């Protein structure tokens, strides 16, 4: 009896760790793709041309105005409703729950990260931009060499929050058959009926991962800090300055 219990505990632990690993993968990949998408989106949002601003605004509004749960269901179950997509060239990717989760998470976090970046870009002192222009920088050079580096540093604390929110959001991957941390917890509960215990255990692991991320972001902040730049994280302000 005891031996069986120990065996079960060891197996559960191994499964939870495997789940945590998948959670980290999903979060990291989604942040990577999402952040890459966020840069052009943020530039479009701050563009002088209405035809560039409008689609970016629509994109951001859609992905920040709907729950991630809806988005992941739309990508995974929704798209598969159409014959054309099932016969299309993207199907090898879209048929995998793993990639559907990455796609939904990336599109979602891109919208939020773009707004964070935009906030950072708006905070760049006008004088610096004028100086760049006076030095004969092209508009692209001005953005690439002056505005973006400064904006990224400015946006780092808010970006750290976004990583944590993505980590927490990745729990929704369990609803499309992925066995990440939450999915594993649910499967273990199906066998043991210890709902609160395993959900709490999974919660604790998420908390640990969160604290690791907080650590990492603090390190980066210190390394990248501009002389005299006050760093004040304002937690909970995921929306930034909301679609102003």
């Amino acid at each position, binding site marked *: 009896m005891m031996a069986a219990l120990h065996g079960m505990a060891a197996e559960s632990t191994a499964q939870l760790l495997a789940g945590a690993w998948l959670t980290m993968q999903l979060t990291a990949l989604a942040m990577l793709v999402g952040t890459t998408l966020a840069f052009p989106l943020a530039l479009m949002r701050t563009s002088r041309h209405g035809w560039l601003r409008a689609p970016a605004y629509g994109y951001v509004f859609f992905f920040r105005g709907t729950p991630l749960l809806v988005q992941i269901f739309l990508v995974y*179950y929704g798209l*598969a*409703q159409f014959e054309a997509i*099932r016969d299309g060239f993207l199907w090898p990717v879209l*048929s995998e*729950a793993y990639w559907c989760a990455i796609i939904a998470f990336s599109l979602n976090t891109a919208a939020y990260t773009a707004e964070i970046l935009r906030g950072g870009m708006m905070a760049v002192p006008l004088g610096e931009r004028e100086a760049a222009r006076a030095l004969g920088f092209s508009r692209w050079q001005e953005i690439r060499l002056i505005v973006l580096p400064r904006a990224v540093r400015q946006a780092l604390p808010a970006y750290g929050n976004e990583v944590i929110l993505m980590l927490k959001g990745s729990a929704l991957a369990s*609803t499309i*058959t992925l*066995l990440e941390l939450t*999915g594993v917890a*649910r*499967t273990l*509960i*199906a*066998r043991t*009926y*210890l*709902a*609160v215990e395993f959900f709490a255990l999974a919660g604790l692991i998420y908390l640990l991962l969160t604290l690791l991320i907080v650590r990492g972001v603090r390190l980066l902040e210190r390394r990248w800090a501009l002389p005299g730049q006050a760093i004040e994280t304002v937690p909970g302000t995921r929306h930034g300055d909301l679609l102003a």
Partner: protein
Amino acid sequence: MKGLIAFLMAAFIAGLLSNARVAYAEPGVPNPLRIGSEGYYPPFNFVDQSGQLKGFDIDIAMALCERLKVECKLLAQDWDGIIPALLAGKYDAIVASMSITDERKKVVSFTDKYYSNKVRFVAAKGGGFDPGKLDGKTIGTQRATIAANWLAKNAGGAKVKLYDKQTDAYLDLAARRLDAIFADGLVLHEWLKTKAGAGFEMVGDAYELDEGIGIAVRKEDNVLRQRLNAALAAMLADGTYATINARYFPFSIY
């Protein structure tokens, strides 16, 4: 500002009081009898345009309540939390096509069976799916079911995908994300009749993995279990059961 806080507090507490209630456990049959079911398992339990739970399970539950002369209060719960929620006291009995198994008997008690089932594979017509060769195949099944347990033990080489809802597994089989679904034959039978199920068929043997389908109650609710058993027996004897059966299946599923 103080007024606002007082108002918020009052509104919140009023909400608490209007919803909370302390249900004292008492021997016998509680009234109303709170029945837990699911809603994604046609034709046994599902929700149509009316927004109400319907199906074979629900009809059985209603008939039981009528016979026990208590009011039936139906509560919906997602499948993988259905036993934890019973244990947490969210409802008093599960009428949701639950298989009677030794594993579940460790935590809940079951009534006598109210129907019998066998587990089957469903795969594309003429696709050559062979239940004897599961290695490398992608099989869908519902989480926390006897089918999922069987696959975990007997299909080590297959990729098993666990769904929260039986009907989500159908979506993925229709989208060809799955090679096959392993699930209750009666439920699959119903799906094969739909437009989406047209291109699929049952493949291979029928597996008997349980002692039939029963109603689960908490272990201490022995009186409730006995009263439910008596009511079930009476329904079987006087033809009530057969009437309900005929609404859903042209053959007896007892």
